[in-house]
């Protein structure tokens, strides 16, 4: 399978500006940060959650706890993923009970990742609320799931792919629209 790059959707500066805005929105809509915690979904949700937390510290001066969730065990499409899935640890160093959680991921597509993440969180306790924050919403939902905080909504076709590349994971920083050609 080959992919061709079609266009750049976001530059490094635009990613940063969008995350700043998302942080402001979260603080505004939550009436403060006291009961909030961010949960980054592996892999690229993790650096995004950390950056949003950093931005929130700048707004409210408060440290918002950040956790990491690996959803491999909760997927409903394991058999479709890879010959050998590799597990990583989840790291949520606080109780999720009665917290207002914000799940953070890079791209919202079918909604299945978010469904899996919520199942994972329920195994850890009973959060008061769970909301979803994504950098890109590309449509094509297969489940009744919507983001509470969206960086950008992008119309895409089935064969197009959103590639979010982040410094912490990919050593470059931009969002690309690419197309799969078979």
């Amino acid at each position, binding site marked *: 399978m080959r992919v061709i790059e079609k266009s750049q959707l976001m530059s490094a500066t635009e990613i940063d500006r969008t995350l700043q805005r998302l942080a402001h929105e979260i603080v505004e809509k939550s009436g403060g940060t006291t009961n909030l915690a961010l949960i980054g979904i592996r892999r690229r949700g993790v650096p995004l959650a950390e950056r949003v937390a950093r931005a929130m510290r700048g707004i409210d001066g408060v440290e918002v706890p950040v956790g990491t969730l690996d959803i491999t065990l909760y997927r409903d499409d394991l058999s479709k993923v890879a*010959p050998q899935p590799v597990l990583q640890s989840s790291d949520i160093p606080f109780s999720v009970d009665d917290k207002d959680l914000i799940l953070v991921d890079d791209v919202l597509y079918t909604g299945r990742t978010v469904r899996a993440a919520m199942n994972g969180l329920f195994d850890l306790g009973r959060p008061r609320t769970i909301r979803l924050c994504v950098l890109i919403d590309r449509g094509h939902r297969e489940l009744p799931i919507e983001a509470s905080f969206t960086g950008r909504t992008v119309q895409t076709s089935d064969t197009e792919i959103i590639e979010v590349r982040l410094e912490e994971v990919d050593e470059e920083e931009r969002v690309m629209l690419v197309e799969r050609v078979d």
Partner: protein
Amino acid sequence: MKKNASCSSNAWTDSRRRSRTALAPQSFEDAVPQRLPHILGIEPLSAEQILFLLDQSKPFQEIQSHPLKKLATLRGKTVALAFFEPSTRTRISFSTAAARLGADTMNLQAEASSLRKGESLLDTVRTLDAMKPDCLVMRHSSAGAPEFVAGRLDIPIINAGDGAHEHPTQGLLDALTIRDRRGTLEGWNVAILGDILHSRVARSDIHLLGKFGCRFTLCGPAMWVPRELESIGPPGCAIRRVARIEEALDGADIVIVLRVQQERMHEPALPLDDYILLYQLTPQRLRLARPDALVLHPGPMNRGVEIDPAVADGPQSCVLEQVTNGLAVRMALLFLLIGTGGGEAAQEIPRAKDVADAAH
């Protein structure tokens, strides 16, 4: 994550079939060793494969402390447990591991089985296989039985102990316990006490820790520690035999106490009282080992025989961690061996995220 997304249907199915005998060609991250078709013993595994298996056990250790421990990951899968030799702990551990992953189990136990009616091993496992389990976990009193079965069935086999050959999941859970407590598997002085001749646990532990440069001192009654044991480890592995437990414990970082199988005490007769006098791990003797030495025991323990209760319950004892880690290791193996599959489903259009991940 989905490198073979463009494979044709047949190629995928074929490669899956081949992967049972050969090894699957690709993995999606460089750190991932090739997929294992079976877990028959520690001896054939590389140090990298062992570390990968231990790393994959980590998330399952976390799950043991969750309020809800049951996952749906292997929902719809069936694990056949065939214990041709009586077992309580290992069987419960495997069936709990399967249950916590959402898999169903079918159970065959020696006492109630048709083996008593003269059915051959091969006929018995073929009968089980005809009920379409996704994986077979087996224990047998004959060394090599799981390998024999693995060559004849199409599903992954996990060896849960075969004769005096190997007990790979025990080896892995011991390694996980040691690595958790001490941070590494490298270079420890390991004392193994008791009936080493008949112990598959000792063999799996020696194969495993030997790959990481550990040195072994074997100690027990002469009839249970024959000279041949000095050469059972990986090439270059340092194994020595000593007669006195005090000598074995001197400077030990890890002490593995084996169960005295009382049914074997009659072989060349050794009165139990003599064994206790000469070989029991007591607090006084344990002081000869390093102050932070770990004490492991595969269970079930004979308190007051091979181990003094004060040692078994002391701060250096890892016995209960071993049991909990056993669950994590077994969940990891079941997940790795049968957590994927579904030939047709693999043809579906890849998810954007998967492709994006694979592109890096």
